[in-house]
C-alpha cells in the first residue's frame, strides 16, 4: 500500500497576521519500494511537504494517508511514525544517549519492543550502516567522527525497520566518499528490503542517478512529477526556477547550442559518454 497525498495545503500560523501559505493543493503518491526524488529551490516547500509524510505537520486542508492510515488521527500517529522513518538534515544533531547502542535503541523502545528485540534491531541497523557493533555499540556517540555520527543517527531510524524512508539532504557536508557510501546504503535498502525512499536533494546528479520519479516543487506547488527523463528534458523551466541540472544534461544543452544534434535527453554521464564515443566511432 502506498503513501497517498491528496490536495494537501499547509499554512503556517493560520488565521494570524503572519499566516504564511507554504504548500498548496499537492496530490502525490509514493508507491511501495519506489525511489522518489524531491527537488526545488530553498523555500519551495520541500521540508514542509516531507514533514507531512509522518504527521509531524498536519494538513491545513487535504489529507495524507500512509498505508491507508490518516495522519490526522492522533491514535494512529505512533504506528505511522514507525512505518515512515524520517531522517532530517544533519541527523547527527539528534544523538543524545550515553552509548551508540542506547541511542539506536531509542526508536525501537518507543515502539514498545522488548529489550531482546530492540537489541537485535540495534545490531542489525549498525551493521547496515557499516558500524561494527562490537566496536561501536558501547562508544559514546559524541566521540565518533562526523561521518560515523551521521551513520549512527541513520541507524537510529533504520532500527525501527521503516517501510518508507524519508531523507532530507542526507549527504550534506560529507566528503565525496562519504556521500557515495550513504547513497549506496540508501539504494541497498530499496533493493534488499523494498524500502520506499523519498529523498530531498540539491544534487541533481544523485537524484538523476537513483530516482524512479522526481517531484519538482516551486513556490509551494507541485510543478511537475515524472521520470528523470521527463523532468530533465524540461531544463529551461528548471533553470527558470533557480534549479541546477545534472551535469550530463548541462553538457547536452551546451553541445546542442554548438550545433551538435543530440536527440536524446541524457541525464546520466555514463550514458552520454557511450553516445559520444559511439558517434565518434561512427564518424571515423
Amino acid at each position, binding site marked *: 500500500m502506498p503513501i497517498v497525498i491528496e490536495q494537501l495545503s499547509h499554512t503556517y500560523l493560520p488565521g494570524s497576521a503572519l499566516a504564511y501559505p507554504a504548500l498548496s493543493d499537492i496530490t502525490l503518491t509514493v508507491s511501495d519500494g519506489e525511489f522518489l526524488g524531491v527537488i526545488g*529551490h*530553498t*523555500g519551495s516547500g520541500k521540508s514542509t511537504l516531507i514533514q507531512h509524510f509522518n504527521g509531524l505537520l498536519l494538513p491545513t486542508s487535504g489529507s495524507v494517508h500512509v498505508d491507508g492510515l490518516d495522519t490526522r488521527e492522533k491514535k494512529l500517529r505512533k504506528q505511522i511514525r514507525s512505518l515512515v522513518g524520517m531522517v532530517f538534515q544533519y541527523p547527527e544533531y539528534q544523538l543524545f544517549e550515553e552509548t551508540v547502542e542506547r541511542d539506536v535503541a531509542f526508536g525501537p523502545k518507543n515502539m514498545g519492543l522488548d529489550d531482546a528485540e530492540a537489541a537485535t534491531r540495534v545490531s542489525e541497523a549498525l551493521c547496515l550502516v557499516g558500524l561494527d557493533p562490537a566496536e561501536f555499540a558501547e562508544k559514546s556517540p559524541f566521540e565518533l*567522527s*562526523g*561521518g560515523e555520527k551521521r551513520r549512527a543517527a541513520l541507524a537510529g531510524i533504520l532500527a525501527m525497520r521503516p517501510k518508507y524512508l524519508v531523507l532530507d539532504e542526507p549527504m*550534506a*557536508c*560529507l*566528503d*565525496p*566518499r*562519504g556521500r557515495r557510501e550513504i547513497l549506496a546504503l540508501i539504494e541497498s535498502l530499496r533493493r534488499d528490503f523494498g524500502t520506499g525512499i523519498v529523498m530531498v536533494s*540539491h544534487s541533481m*546528479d544523485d537524484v538523476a542517478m537513483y530516482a524512479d520519479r522526481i517531484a519538482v516543487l516551486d513556490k509551494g506547488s507541485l510543478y511537475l512529477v515524472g521520470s528523470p527523463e521527463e523532468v530533465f528534458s524540461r531544463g529551461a523551466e528548471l533553470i527558470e526556477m*533557480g*534549479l*541546477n541540472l545534472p*551535469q550530463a544534461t*548541462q*553538457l547536452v544543452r*551546451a*553541445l546542442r*547550442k*554548438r*550545433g*551538435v544534434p543530440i536527440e536524446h535527453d541524457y541525464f546520466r*554521464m555514463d550514458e*552520454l*559518454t557511450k553516445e*559520444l*564515443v559511439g*558517434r*565518434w*566511432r561512427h*564518424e571515423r
Partner: protein
Amino acid sequence: MPSEAIIKLVNVGFQYAGSEKTALKNISLSIKKGEVVAVVGHNGSGKSTLCKLFNALLLPAEGTVTVDGMDTSAEANLLEIRRRVGMVFQNPDNQLVTTIVEEDVGFGPENLGVPPAEIRARVDAALGEVEMRDYAEKASHALSGGQKQRVAIAGLLAMQPEVLVLDEATAMLDPRGREEVLSTVLKLNRERGMTVVMITQFMEEALGADRVFVLHDSRLVMEGTPREVFNERALLEESRLDAPAFVKLRDDLLAAGLPVSQDAMTCDALADEISRALTA
C-alpha cells in the same frame, strides 16, 4: 602574477591537546599575494586545522607560520595578522555576532578601534561589495544561508584584509547560495587582487583556483594547478577524493580516442572540444 608570499608555512606540525593523533605532519607551503588557492581533502584530513593556523587561531607545535613576514606565534602580531587574514567559517549561523546586519559588519572595525565615521563608511562600502546594502537594517537570522555568508564576508572586508580564507564556507549552502559566495570572492580576487584560500569538499570549486593543495591523513600529498592535480586520478582516489565529473568524462573520451584537450575540465570547455572533434 606577483610572487611575493603572503602566507608561508615551514615544516609545520600540529597536535590537539589531549589527542594522540597528529593533526598535521611536516607541512611546508606558501600562498602568494593575489592568488586563489583551493585546499581539498577528505573529512578529518586536517584541512580545517591547517587553515586555522593561517590567522593564529591555532599555533604550530613544530615549524613556523608567517603572514606577511610576521610570525603567528608572536603575541604582539596577533591583531595585525587577524586583520590581514579574514576567515569565513562553515556554519552561517555561528559567526554573526549581532542581530542587525550592518551592526555585525561593523563588529570587526569596532574591535580595531576605528573611528565611528570611518566604520560607517567601511560598512556601507563592504555591504556594497557583497551586494547586501538593501539588507543593512534587516535581522540577520531571517536571511538565506548564502546571504549570511556574504554578510560574514562583508564583516571581514570592513577590516580591509589581504587574504580571505573560506573554511568550507559553502558546505551548508544550497547551489544558489554556493554560487553567490563563490562569485563574490572570485570577483574580489579579480577586482581587488584579494588573495583567496578556499577549503572545500566540492572538487568543482577547486577548478576555479590557480593552485590546489591536497591533504590526506594530516599530510600535504599533492600541490599543483587544477589540471596537474586532477590528472593524478589514482592519487586522488587514494586520498579518498574524486575528480570532477567533467574531468572523468574528458579522460573517458581520451581513452576512447576522442581528441579533446587536457585543459578541458568544465562543461563549456569540454563542449567546445567535443563539438570540434565531432564536426571536424
